[in-house]
């Protein structure tokens, strides 16, 4: 027994001496969400950073969107968040309030984070109460993709940038009549469209304090849904059954425009890279603004797509910030990332990337430049109850029954308002 204890003591002492030798190295952990494409690119950038800074070791934990938040919440509760985490506009405020993010202003002042080539507007999305907590790593915006060849075949002219929902309906029906394919792909019945339509008409889906709906006029919404029903009936867009069976949760590579089943499609601008890749380099695709309400402003806005934040549990905030700075400002790193998360915020980087861009990425960069000139202001982030409203009310009690023909639009709207308001008002 004594011998055993003696041996154990020796082993412990030796290993602790070994550990002390490695204490010079700084170990960081980083977590992000995305598809395999993004994982591969990000890991390469991490390796490039580690080469430049041999004393910093970064281990990474990528995952999908849902898993990322489950993991992060669990680690937050357990007190072991990674040093750097990818953040989302809708959640930054919540995480700041719970004290999980490290404020970055002093790191900006001390020059660790260099934003001399970044416009103020691109940083404002990551600010809470005037303090910077999250660095925008890619801007994007909602967009409509148009298949130019399909339009030509149907003999329909491409719409202008400021087209309205009525224009859209006409075009979708015409293409379907002339070519038999869907005029439009899936997804335009989601909650983002609901919010964007109200943004286009000058209001917002939620009130300022997030405790109630932000609009009183349901007519806009009723008209939009009636349009969806008309299009569904005519077969110009996929039915809800089609959407659930073929498109929901299948990733952007499964979108109808990729296989030529639809002449138009709806997505976020950074997703065009994966879509064009899957559709084939020889396709002719352009990006336009989403259709707006009659007499309204643009239905889309410059959205900070994702952020990188330093968490409150990090023991090396300075080194973590160094990585974020590298991510933002290094042209070499961004040549690998190739704007897969959206247009980089540093103007130097954006210029440096231009010669390398493929057709899809050029289209995205040009589109974002157009959007910056013609867009609605960045709306406030969604209230905390937003996930519950969408999950428990928007789909099962409202959109699904209406689109499956089991509830009238007016009943659905009244029900939606009632249930959503109840959830938003509770604590």
């Amino acid at each position, binding site marked *: 027994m004594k011998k055993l204890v003696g041996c154990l003591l020796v082993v412990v002492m030796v290993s602790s001496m070994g550990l002390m030798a490695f204490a010079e190295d700084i170990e960081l952990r980083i977590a992000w969400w995305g598809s395999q494409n993004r994982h591969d690119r990000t890991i390469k950038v991490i390796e490039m950073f580690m080469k430049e800074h041999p004393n910093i070791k970064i281990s990474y934990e990528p995952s999908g969107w849902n898993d990322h938040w*489950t993991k992060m919440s669990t680690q937050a509760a357990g007190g072991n968040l990674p040093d750097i985490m990818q953040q989302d506009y809708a959640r930054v405020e919540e995480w700041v309030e719970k004290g999980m993010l490290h404020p970055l202003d002093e790191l900006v002042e001390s020059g660790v984070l260099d934003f001399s080539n970044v416009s103020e507007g691109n940083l404002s999305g990551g600010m809470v109460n005037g303090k910077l907590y999250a660095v925008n790593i890619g801007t994007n915006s909602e967009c409509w993709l148009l298949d130019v060849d399909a339009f030509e075949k149907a003999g329909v002219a491409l719409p202008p940038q400021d087209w309205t929902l009525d224009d859209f309906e006409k075009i979708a029906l015409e293409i379907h009549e002339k070519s038999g394919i869907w005029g439009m792909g899936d997804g335009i019945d989601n909650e983002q469209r609901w919010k964007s339509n109200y943004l286009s008409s000058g209001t917002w889906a939620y009130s300022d304090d997030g405790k109630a709906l932000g609009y009183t006029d349901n007519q806009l919404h009723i008209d939009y849904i009636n349009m969806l029903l008309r299009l569904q009936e005519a077969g110009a867009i996929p*039915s809800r059954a089609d959407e*659930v069976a073929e498109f929901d949760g299948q990733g952007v590579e499964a979108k109808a425009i990729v296989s030529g089943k639809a002449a138009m499609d709806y997505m976020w601008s950074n997703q065009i890279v994966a879509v064009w890749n899957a559709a084939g380099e020889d396709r002719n695709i352009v990006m336009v603004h989403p259709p707006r309400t009659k007499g309204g402003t643009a239905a889309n806005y410059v959205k900070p797509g994702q952020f990188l934040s330093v968490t409150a549990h990090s023991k090396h905030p300075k080194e973590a910030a160094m990585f974020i700075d590298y991510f933002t400002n290094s042209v070499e790193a961004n040549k690998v990332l190739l704007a897969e998360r959206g247009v980089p915020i540093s103007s130097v980087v954006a210029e440096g990337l231009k010669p390398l861009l493929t057709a899809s990425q050029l289209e995205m960069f040009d589109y974002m430049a157009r959007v910056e000139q013609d867009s609605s202001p960045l709306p406030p982030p969604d209230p905390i109850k937003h996930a519950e409203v969408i999950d*428990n009310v928007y789909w*099962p009690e409202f959109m*699904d029954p209406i689109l499956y023909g089991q509830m009238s639009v007016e009943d659905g709207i009244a029900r939606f308002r009632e249930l959503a308001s109840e959830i938003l008002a509770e604590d």
Partner: protein
Amino acid sequence: MKGSSSQDVIGKTVEPSRKRKRHYRHDNLAGYAFLSPWLIGFVLFVFLPIAASFFLAFTKYDILRAPRWVGLANFEKMFTRDLRYWRSVKVTFFYVFTAIPLRLVFALICAMLLNTKRRMVSVYRALYYAPSVVGTSVAVAVMWREVFGKEGLVNYILAGFGIAGPIWLGDPNTAIWTLIVLAAWQFGSPMLIFLAGLKQIPPELYESASIDGADRWRKFLHVTLPMLTSVILFNMVMQMISGFLIFAQAFIVSNGTGAPMDSLLVYALYLYRQAFVTFKMGYSSAMAWVLLLVIAFFTAIVFKSSQYWVFYESEGGE
């Protein structure tokens, strides 16, 4: 003299029993030591989390903030104000009382077909058991989505007969049947257990039935089934419990949403969404405990009824 001899005697009687006590304690200690890895694992990873979830069922807890005691509010909301909850209960009950009987029926039929001594029987046994091996795997569920897709295998075959197949996974009326078919397809485990039960039926009973002039159907009704009742009870209970707990297949076939229109929103899936999409840990813990009670209730009913219809050979029967 007497005193010293009695002292000797006392000394002698005390010594061995003390040795015996030390021996027993030493045995016990060794027993616990060998048990300890499992015991520690059980306490830390099973018992404590279950106890914690019982506590959490009476709180509001979203992981990022500390739990807040709310008493019976979760249960009250669940039973009175949550429509999706009752929908998930309905879906789960429909699934359990359709898929499980189907699965057991197929298992019994197959077991009877395989209860022969032909040459290739062991190959067939393995083949029929194979679907259950890949059972609740993600890969099979993903494949199932493709099989029942709009242009998937099933619709392809139906088109060969000139029938335009429905959009199985998009229509709220047909989606649940894809799950039920998946469950019925994986009848391997109960089938093997039925097979074992069939092999235990003494052939003399069949012989005497033949002598009494019974045909195949009567032999089945009056010899096979009664002798199998204990196996049927076992399979029924086990399959019913696992039926109530179904999650993975519903999650993958519906892409985690329970779509279309909540027709695939089984209880465990709704529980998962409450916990990990809307971060209501307290509410989902309450749901978990209600599920436990419901399963316990139905299991108790089955067991209670079993005294009326199960024949145990060991008890001599009636």
